[in-house]
């Protein structure tokens, strides 16, 4: 264990900003629920009506957790934030752990450290310490934000303590996964699978009789019943699971060779399939997982929005805040709600579009483009294939969201015509989505180092949509967001002009980026 404290100090230095951002984000997740719930309903009667409606919505229960005391602010915070909070704190722990264990081992930096006067278990011990500290920080900040809101102190603290304990469970899981998998990717995959299983088990359990929820750490956390008859003993389950996974990790670590994993990578095909001979085939092969994943995610999100059916009126209350948020769309409240839901789906689809559009930069930065462009493949053809995939993938992802929305609505309301109606209403949003991916391409062509700045474009659009009308931002500023121009179908009739203009802007950005790439040096390490 020699050198553990030295490593802890080193890790804290490397991670402090990252951990701080995670902690702030997670705290905001909890605190903003309290703020928005408080602002949304003006009378308790209204609140009761909304709560009654939410309780009976199976999709909401499956997404968030068991519906308890939903007509109180604390109950709402617990319901809305705990499942996502647990997943987020799990992600933070996973990235922290794998970054210092398996990733370091793969790059060989760990070898350097271990060759120095550092004990065999020191990296593992130091990683554990830092990850636990990070989880404690998150828990403390969440508790503090809720206590000062103010909500009931004991329940607020319970939410924080439980969150830190869930984080500890996933820390142990990631630590174990980093020993089992033989690459960072495998470690991420294993930890992610455990987190996914924990989420799904509790979703099925919460919708059913609750038995399966007891197989999930997230279920234990929610089983503490904060703000609805608090009990502390489920924390013991969390701590026991954290200890068990950590001990497991230490045992495996002691028995394996450096650089080896328990699970080895499966061999793949020794020959390429027919698709893998064209740039389009290559682009699809590299991105298919992400296209399918994002499509499934948007489909489910759309489905849960749609499953609210005609009841959205009750859900939204009658406060100024909800009027403000949905007044953007105008018209009947149901239509206004779904027009806004479609915008949200489009912003999510932008996540795929931007991540896909910055991929060429990653391939360039990591030196893979060099070998490709030294073949008969021209620069234009290579980039064009990537663009085609980004455009087609974005359409697919967005379409999946619209389809989910329509199907969800149709299932709840029995109105089968809604499937086609909402699906079609989603499609024009492809234009503003592609404006953002076009921005990424322009950056790639002109200032490749800054390609990732395209994410800032998405962030800006999100901020404008959520807060623009609320804070009465100047119109010219809101107009800068590509999402601020389209007619809000179904609340308003569709208009061609803004759609065509946005489409033209997207195309112009993309063409300019492509032309610039043709003229510049390929950057090589």
């Amino acid at each position, binding site marked *: 264990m020699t050198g553990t404290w030295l490593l802890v100090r080193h890790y804290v230095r490397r991670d402090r900003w990252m951990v701080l951002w995670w902690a702030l984000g997670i705290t905001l997740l909890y605190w903003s629920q309290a703020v928005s719930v408080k602002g949304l309903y003006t009378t308790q009667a209204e609140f009761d009506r909304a709560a009654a409606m939410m309780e009976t919505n199976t999709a909401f229960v499956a997404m968030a957790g068991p519906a308890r005391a939903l007509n109180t602010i604390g109950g709402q915070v617990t319901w809305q934030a705990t499942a996502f909070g647990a997943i987020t704190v799990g992600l933070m722990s996973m990235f922290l752990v794998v970054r210092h264990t398996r990733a370091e081992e793969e790059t060989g930096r760990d070898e350097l450290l271990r060759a120095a006067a550092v004990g065999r278990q020191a990296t593992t011990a130091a990683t554990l310490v830092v990850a636990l500290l990070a989880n404690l920080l998150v828990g403390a900040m969440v508790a503090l934000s809720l206590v000062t809101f103010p909500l009931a102190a004991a329940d607020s603290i319970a939410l924080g303590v439980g969150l830190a304990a869930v984080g500890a469970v996933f820390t142990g899981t990631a630590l174990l996964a980093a020993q089992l998998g*033989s*690459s960072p*990717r495998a470690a991420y995959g294993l930890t992610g699978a455990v987190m996914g299983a924990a989420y799904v088990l509790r979703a099925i359990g919460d919708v059913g009789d609750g038995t399966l929820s007891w197989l999930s750490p997230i279920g234990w956390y929610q089983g503490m019943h904060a703000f609805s008859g608090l009990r502390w003993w489920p924390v013991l389950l969390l701590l026991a699971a954290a200890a068990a996974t950590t001990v497991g990790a230490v045992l495996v670590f002691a028995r394996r060779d450096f650089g080896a994993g328990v699970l080895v*990578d499966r*061999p*793949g*095909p*020794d*020959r*390429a*399939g027919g698709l*893998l*001979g*064209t*740039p389009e085939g*290559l682009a699809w*092969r*590299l991105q298919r997982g992400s296209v399918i994943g994002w499509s499934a995610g948007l489909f489910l999100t759309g489905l849960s929005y749609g499953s609210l059916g005609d009841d959205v009126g009750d859900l939204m209350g009658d406060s100024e805040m909800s009027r403000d948020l949905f007044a953007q769309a105008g018209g009947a409240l149901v239509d206004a709600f779904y027009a806004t839901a479609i915008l949200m789906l489009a912003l999510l689809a932008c996540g795929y579009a931007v991540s896909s559009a910055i991929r060429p930069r990653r391939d360039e930065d*990591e*030196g*893979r483009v*060099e*070998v*490709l*462009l*030294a*073949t*008969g*493949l*021209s*620069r234009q*053809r290579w980039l064009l294939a990537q663009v085609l995939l980004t455009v087609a993938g974005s359409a697919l992802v967005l379409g999946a969201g619209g389809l989910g929305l329509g199907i969800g609505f149709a299932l709840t309301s029995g109105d089968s015509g809604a499937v086609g109606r909402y699906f079609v209403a989603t499609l024009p949003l492809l234009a503003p989505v592609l404006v953002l991916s076009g921005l990424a391409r322009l950056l790639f062509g002109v200032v490749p180092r800054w390609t990732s700045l395209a994410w800032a474009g998405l962030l800006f659009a999100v901020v404008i949509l959520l807060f623009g009308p609320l804070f009465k931002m100047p119109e010219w500023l809101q107009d800068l967001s590509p999402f601020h121009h389209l007619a809000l179908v179904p609340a308003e009739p569709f208009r061609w002009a803004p759609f065509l203009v946005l489409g033209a802007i997207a195309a112009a950005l993309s063409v300019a980026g492509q032309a610039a790439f043709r*003229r*510049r*040096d*390929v950057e*090589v*390490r």
Partner: protein
Amino acid sequence: MLADVSAPIEIAGLVKHFGTVHALDGLDLTVAEGEVHGYLGPNGSGKSTTIRVLLGLLRADEGSVRLLGGDPWREAADLHRRLAYVPGDVSLWPNLTGGEVIDLLGRLRGGLDERRRAELVERFELDPTKKGRTYSKGNRQKVALVAALASDVELLLLDEPTSGLDPLMGEVFEQCVDEFREQGGTALLSSHVLAEVEQLCDRVSILRSGRCVETGTLSELRHLTRTTVRAETERPPGGLASLPGVHDLVVEGRRAAFEVDTAELDTVLGVLHAAGIRTMSATPPTLEELFLRHYGDAVPTAAPVDAS
């Protein structure tokens, strides 16, 4: 010369800046058809930059560059179907297998020779079913080498292609390049492995600070350096000190040790012969000495040898 018109690589006065850094500063380089041309120089001297300009990945700031009779910037893709490239640091897609990458690169280059592909995978002892992220540096290089050598091309651009290979695999590589040359292929080989250069290259060019400081066959280059001579003679050898080209002379009675410019070797041996040689050893300059002389700080004084 007429032959130069069709030389696969012709570079004259090539200049390439990165910001304020002059990576290439008036480079001249000609690689004739059918030769394996060694490209040597210390790290950062501009070897990789030259190859990337030849590939049309970087744009020349000044000077003329002809590759296989075409313009590497404008006709990049067409020219690339006739050549193959192996970088020193091969980066692969983490989730594609080596076999898939070989096929992908081969197809993009216009097709692979199936028999040759199978044979090379065997000779390089490459496991083509492993994913890109699990390969070591040497194995990643093998993937690129198999993809390059299995293509039917006229020209190979090899940028330190063996820097991760073990000596056994290095030998396989040398055999493959020899076979390629026998079939009439041309290659530009940048390398730090001097034994490999000596084994493979017909001519070498030595690069320093973005300029070519020496070009010629190895024997021509050797000619420019000094041979170490130790001799014991019957009579004390007189007049050695006054001969041109003799350096670091030490005479102890009838023994003499000195270095001599290889060009003056004949004259000096004449003097020793006149003194009656009893024993003598003459060590020709090693490649290391040859290159250290150019890599080091000392500015070369000898005039460049004309390649013709």
